[in-house]
């Protein structure tokens, strides 16, 4: 847009008033977005007496890290009392292979799909696209049966398989949409030189695709780490991912409610994806918006 100062009506009192209005709305919004994380963080550092005094929005009197230690390694979840730590590790063990495998498969099949020009290629594309939108309630019953049949029910391996399978639609489409925008001359020139499918993929397309690899990895990681339905449906006890364990901790009714420990646990569960977002926010946004400009 043009510089505001060069525009008619863009100077003087009215302009200033407009700026004040815009800035106050933006700052109110910022406070509302930051509010919950501030409350959660400050509650996690208070002791229980301070919390019971009911000063929700006040800063903690002193930094008290005991709730964090308890949330990480001592809080009771179900029958076990070693905190969120084992479930956090479950989520790490679950996420890494799911992300890597689904991104690799997506990179290769997305490239192949971008080369399709025959009739019916659009149908394959549409079927994959629809697969990104289905409510997973529609697959959990047969999936529970299948995991049992394969002998990987109630295991992290089972969750890795599930996340990989349902991630492929997304990763394939990320890569496919990226590759169709790569100039065809590059591929044609390489074909002239006698390079085959895999050579072109490996030496030309994959190095070009670095940004979309980052997008795919971040997207998949966020999805898998934050996922709850599969974890709650297919695992119990010691093989649960961190989201399910967090929910069990929050909703346990057995002991005195330790709100500070609950809040520390919530922040621990949220930390990995938040860190990824802060470090690589640009790519995170691209993954989100790629979902809106499919096709």
């Amino acid at each position, binding site marked *: 847009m043009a510089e505001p100062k060069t525009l008619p009506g863009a100077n003087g009192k009215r302009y200033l008033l407009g700026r004040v209005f815009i800035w106050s709305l933006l700052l109110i919004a910022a406070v509302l977005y930051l509010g919950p994380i501030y409350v959660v963080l400050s509650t996690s550092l208070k002791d229980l007496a301070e919390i019971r005094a009911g000063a929700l929005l006040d800063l903690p009197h002193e930094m008290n890290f005991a709730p964090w230690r308890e949330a990480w390694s001592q809080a009771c979840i179900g029958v076990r009392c070693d905190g969120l730590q084992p479930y956090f590790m479950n989520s790490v063990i679950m996420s890494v292979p799911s992300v890597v495998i689904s991104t690799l498969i997506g990179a290769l099949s997305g490239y*192949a799909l971008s080369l399709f020009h025959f009739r019916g290629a659009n149908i394959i594309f549409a079927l994959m696209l629809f697969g990104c939108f289905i409510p997973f309630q529609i697959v959990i019953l047969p999936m529970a049966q299948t995991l049992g049949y394969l002998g990987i029910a109630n295991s992290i391996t089972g969750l890795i398989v599930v996340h990989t399978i349902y991630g492929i639609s997304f990763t394939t489409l990320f890569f496919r949409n990226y590759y169709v925008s790569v100039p065809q001359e590059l591929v044609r020139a390489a074909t002239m030189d006698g390079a085959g499918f895999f050579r072109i993929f490996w030496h030309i397309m994959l190095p070009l695709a670095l940004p979309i690899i980052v997008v795919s990895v971040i997207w998949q990681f966020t999805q898998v780490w934050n996922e709850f339905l599969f974890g709650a449906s297919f695992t119990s006890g010691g093989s649960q991912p961190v989201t399910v364990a967090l929910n069990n901790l929050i909703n346990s009714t057995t002991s005195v409610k330790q709100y500070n420990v609950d809040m520390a646990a919530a922040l621990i569960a949220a930390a990995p994806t938040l860190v990824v977002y802060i470090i690589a926010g640009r790519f995170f946004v691209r993954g989100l918006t790629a979902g809106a400009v499919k096709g």
Partner: protein
Amino acid sequence: MSNPRQRKQQMSVLDRLQRYLPQLVVAPPFLLLVFFVYGFIAWTGIISLTDSRMLPSFDIQGFQQYARLFAMDRWDVAFHNLLIFGSLYVLFALMIGCLLAVLLDQHIRAEGALRTIYLYPMAISFIVTGTAWKWILNPSLGIESYMQKLGWESFQFDWIVNRDMAIYVVVIAAVWQASGFVMALFLSALRTVDEDIIRAAHLDGASTTRIYIGIILPSLRPVFLSAFVILAHLSIKSFDLVVALTNGGPGYSSTLPANFMYEMAFRRNQIGLGAASAMMMLATVAAIIVPYLYSELRAKHHG
């Protein structure tokens, strides 16, 4: 040893393999998709026509599970909640996201920082969001008691434990989480608007507000449509937020269809009923997604 003719034939087999290689590479993941998405949809569809309870049976009985479903108050509440939650969630997320994008488009120096703040909720899980809002909104120690202690003694905000209002709490938390995403969508679209048109309108004496309402926002219709479709289908899939925030309560007053399905399938051994409700969810999603995908793909093909 081989004569030229044989070599030529070998070449052509390799050539042909090379030509079909893309199809061969796509085939395995595509078959996985056909089996694990469309095969499983068929499986659930068949189970929804049986009287399966704890274990799936394949003895087709007809549409009795659907009849049971529609007769249940619990399903009625869940579907009614979806209508309330879905429409308010989509409406407010669109409005707030669009407003923030337009405001951020006014040459704001701290744009990067503000954008990061508005969008971070999208990076955390619904369970964490639910946990945070459940704590803030709990009447005994949360924002209600805080306001009362500040001296505003008549302040009341007990929606989370109120049968009639609990679903609106879910709306608040969900809008908080998703509006930044809508903002990001609109902001990237606003950056592609042709500056010359805006400059010309300015020279004609149109105010900034009028330019946005009259020219820019109408040109963003495709973004409105995409955002609508994504938000609407997310609202139908909403599950974890309710679990963490209200656990469907008080009673079952704030359950959504996704929670109903989980309850029937995994807690009450009503697999047939769960499958029927899952099919209803799929049908609702399809009613939104299929026309959208159809028009998008057609436009791509002919445009």
